[in-house]
């Protein structure tokens, strides 16, 4: 296990691993890590597997695992709760949000990084502050504004809310700062206006940052429920999360609810499985730059 193996990072070094006591410490740390992984994954796995229990099994029998695994139970719940509809609604919310997140925040980041008109420092300052002042504290007046504009029951306010994300603006600004100004200047000399520079030159160069923003937007708008609940409840446009929230006051059985939880966590898990590298990089950026 330790023979052909150099360790040149962290506290324990290749040199230390020659000592048996340190090797034991390393193995203990490895076991602790496996235990941590178990803690992280067990509740998720239990939730998914519990969906295979029948109602009486789930409510009456104190057992960890179901007695049989029949996927038909999930399909039945999916049909009775009409999850296809909620999935479609959630997908509509997600797609529109991606558009606004990328274009709205991207344009703002571009102007703050590459055009810097007089007075833009003040906007940047406001955005830095918005990063810290949580949106939830002003949910009431925001909700009232949307009601006054009669946009209740529409997806539009949810889509547009993705376009006001201070964190994304800063992410974009930092990214655009790394594009050489000379590229922009050359395009300006060639007679491009700022809009076409953004869409034809900067945007194609921003593949990686657009991917990060897109993934985080998908996850955030899929998971969001407070504003969707306030705006879409009882309109037939409820998203998966809104439906999940309503279970508190509905007649659905416990096993139906736990299966619905599984339905609601599968898309984010699939997304994560494909893009985990981008997500982990994004999260490190939040901490270091935020």
């Amino acid at each position, binding site marked *: 296990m330790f023979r052909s193996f150099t360790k040149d990072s962290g506290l324990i070094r290749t040199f230390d691993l020659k000592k048996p006591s340190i090797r034991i410490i390393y193995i203990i*740390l490895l076991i602790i890590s496996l235990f941590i992984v178990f803690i*992280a994954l067990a509740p998720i796995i239990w939730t998914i597997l519990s969906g295979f229990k029948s109602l009486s099994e789930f409510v009456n029998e104190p057992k960890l695992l179901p007695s049989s695994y029949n996927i038909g139970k999930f399909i039945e719940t999916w049909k009775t709760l009409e999850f296809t509809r909620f999935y479609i609604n959630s997908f509509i919310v997600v797609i529109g949000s991606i558009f606004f997140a990328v274009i709205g925040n991207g344009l703002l980041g571009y102007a703050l990084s590459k*055009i810097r008109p007089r007075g833009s420092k003040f906007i940047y300052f406001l955005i830095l502050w918005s990063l810290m002042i949580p949106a939830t504290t002003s949910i009431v007046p925001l909700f009232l504004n949307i009601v006054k504009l009669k946009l209740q029951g529409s997806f539009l306010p949810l889509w547009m809310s993705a376009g006001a994300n201070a964190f994304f603006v800063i992410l974009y600004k930092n990214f655009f700062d790394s594009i050489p100004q000379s590229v922009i200047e050359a395009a300006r000399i060639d007679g491009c206006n700022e809009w076409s520079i953004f869409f034809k030159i900067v945007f194609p160069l921003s593949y990686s940052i657009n991917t990060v923003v897109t993934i985080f937007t998908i996850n955030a708008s899929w*998971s969001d429920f407070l504003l969707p609940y306030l705006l879409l409840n009882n309109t037939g446009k409820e998203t998966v999360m809104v439906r999940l929230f309503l279970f508190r006051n509905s007649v659905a059985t416990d096993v139906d609810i736990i299966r619905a939880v599984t339905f609601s966590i599968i898309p984010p898990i699939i997304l994560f499985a494909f893009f985990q590298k981008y997500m982990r990089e994004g999260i490190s950026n939040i901490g*270091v730059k935020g």
Partner: protein
Amino acid sequence: MFRKYRKDISGWLIMLPGIILFSFYIWEPLLASIVMSFYSAKGIRLERFVGLQNYIAVLNHPDFKSAFSNTFSYTFWSLIIGFLVPIILAIILNEIIHFKGFFRISIYLPNVIPGLAVTIMWLFIYRAGRTGLLNIILGNFGFPPQAWLTKSHLVIPLIVLFMTWRSAGATTLIYLAGLQGIDQELYEAATIDGANIWARLKYITLPQIYNLARTLLILQIIFVFQVLYEPLVLTNGGPNNASISLMLLVYKYAFEKFDYPKAVSVSVIIALVLIILTGLYNKLVKENEM
């Protein structure tokens, strides 16, 4: 004359969509909260200026006292349970060479699951009676089943426990990025000088992540201060207000009692606390950069 300002004008035009979105979603609602908190209202229509009456009414209501002290209790428990965990996890995982990617992916997975789904999962884990997961596990060791969420002294730590379960992985990744940023030559030099592993941990690792930990401490306080839907979904603030938070109080004023001015008064109080914390945070970030 026009040429001189052309860059400014096109810059502001490009920023315009973003500025409109930020104004609509963040800046205007924040100002509207402040204005509204000084008025009485009928439904969503403001009626007349009442000075500080809303604040006085809110502050004198017994719910506020519970919510205020509970919010501090959430913060306190999140620091006890949640602050050190990611640091310890990061230090351990940083040492592990085997299955490195697997560990990082697994600990981050709870973070991609929507917060509402996590809360409902834990509702089943903490469920009273023999069939909640926690009671099943404890039952194997001979403990009688407990009605966990009805114990007023336990309810906040139990909520914080699963908030930590959900977010510790992401914070761990931030610390891991910080640990990897440490100049490896420091360890080499210390090893040559004969410093053992504990000494390296104490004199190199911990001082090097001290600034990061201080920043994340403030971020965590800001984050936990807004706790809303965990108590909303899990306990609806109960038992007997034992888990009501300030944001949940806002929610109840606004969307259960439709008393919008009182709701925004509480959110202004929250925003004030958060602005103070944010100022502190920005000061620390600036110090870090220097």
